């Protein structure tokens, strides 16, 4: 039971990251391979700000996503916008290259081994069936809130309506007088900011290290294949659900814990190739 609840913590990261990937893909038609590196940058930003300037966790939770999001905006304006007219594969390759550059620079400067980030909340919370570390409980709740807020922002607000419409038919949206290129830049910044926010939340749990995001994002790709990228709620549910599955596997057959998501992916490809929430290919 405890493992299952802890599985939700991983699920929280899967959900936040796959959500960002889906939002970016919808608007930019690019699978953002840099997502893991941007997650890492979020964690690093928090760690550096704490170490150098003494900025507390709670401030980093706001500042780091803004900083990393702005870097994302620059990358979009400098590089990504040049390849929207090309096959999706080029976006994948470009963002892969960007990830290599970013991670390589961090490794070069700070080495591959990680550094700990002190948990801002200590102690445990009695959930009745288990005592859960309070910080982890906070992560699950916060991630859920962030995901739902993102869902609300996209499905229920004016800006969200622009995003949805521009995902469907950018040309027409632009002909209505909306600056679609700017909307695309903004979307990328927001998606990247979301990844960085997940990174800040992860800092006290994982070691802050240059490669912390890469391994995660590879699993998140499987999550995205399983869920399909068509639905925001789908991404959230799939992310948390797979975290739970992973937690359960840890209980019943620990050696398979880190491969179970890939097995689920294989099964989904067999049974419903378009993904659980995807439209036909």
């Amino acid at each position, binding site marked *: 039971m405890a493992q299952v609840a802890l599985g939700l913590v991983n699920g929280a990261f899967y959900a936040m990251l796959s959500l960002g990937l889906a939002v970016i893909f919808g608007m930019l038609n690019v699978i953002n391979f840099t997502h893991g590196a941007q997650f890492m940058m979020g964690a690093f930003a928090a760690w550096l700000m704490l170490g150098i300037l003494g900025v507390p966790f709670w401030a980093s939770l706001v500042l780091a996503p803004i900083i990393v999001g702005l870097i994302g905006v620059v990358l979009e304006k400098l590089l990504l916008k040049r390849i929207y007219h090309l096959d999706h594969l080029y976006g994948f390759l470009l963002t892969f290259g960007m990830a290599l550059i970013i991670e390589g620079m961090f490794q070069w400067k700070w080495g591959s081994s990680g550094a700990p980030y002190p948990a801002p909340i200590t102690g445990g919370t009695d959930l009745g069936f288990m005592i859960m570390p309070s910080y982890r409980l906070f992560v699950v709740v916060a991630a859920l809130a962030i995901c739902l807020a993102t869902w609300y922002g996209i499905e229920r607000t*004016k800006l969200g*309506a*622009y995003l*949805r*419409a521009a995902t*469907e038919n950018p040309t027409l949206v632009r*002909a*209505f*007088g909306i600056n679609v290129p700017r909307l695309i830049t903004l979307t990328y910044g927001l998606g990247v900011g979301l990844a960085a926010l997940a990174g800040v939340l992860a800092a006290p749990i994982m070691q802050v290290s240059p490669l912390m995001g890469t391994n995660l994002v590879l699993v998140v790709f499987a999550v995205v294949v399983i869920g399909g990228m068509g639905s925001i709620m789908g991404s959230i549910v799939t992310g948390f659900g797979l975290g739970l599955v992973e937690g359960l596997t840890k209980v019943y057959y620990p050696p398979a814990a880190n491969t179970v998501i890939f097995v689920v992916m294989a099964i989904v490809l067999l049974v419903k190739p378009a993904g659980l929430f995807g439209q036909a290919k």
Partner: protein
Amino acid sequence: MADTLLKVDGLQAWYGESHILHGIGFEIARGELVTLLGRNGAGKTTTLKSVMGIVEKRTGSVTFDGRETVGLPSDQIARLGLAYCPEERGIFSSLNVEENLLLPPVVRPGGMSLAEIYQLFPNLMERRRSQGTKLSGGEQQMLAIGRILRTGASLLLLDEPTEGLAPVIVQRIGDIIHQLKGRGFTILLVEQNFHFAATVADRHYVMEDGRVVDMIASADVQQNIGKLQAYLGV
């Protein structure tokens, strides 16, 4: 013309390598309702898209209210006060009816309010929470027209609003276009159905193979009926 709102001169346009418009010229006065007639593939839609800046590869001159628009991106053109209702209607399936209506931003003052639009299209009011693409064809057309009335645009570009609709609906749309003209909108209407066009328009331009080949005032349509039928192949 005394008060020209839109003036198109020597407009050429391309889709990639294919040259579609070969020097189009026409003008529309403020408050006028003008149609573009022509057979399938004559280049009517391309003309609207080029005026709107959706077809980006274009040369020549398009002035709106005295401002040159060739070279501007389509969002900036829209902000001058042009609004476009596409042939395929372009209703967004991920938006409900009201979200579709509220999508185009207000670019100038003086547009219709949501309440006025619902008054004009009571069906849309009833179905305002439905998914946009769940509406019937006629309702979708009304939504596509209603959507561009809020923005304060003074020139409406309507691409075949009656295409594929039942005669009663066509009549309804004719009424609405009449009312819009009455409200002071300037309208450029693309039509294949020239019987319908003749009932609403002041003047007609006829297109053939990417060129404007004739201009006929509504009053002269009866004398020129044979010529028109030849142009349109009906």
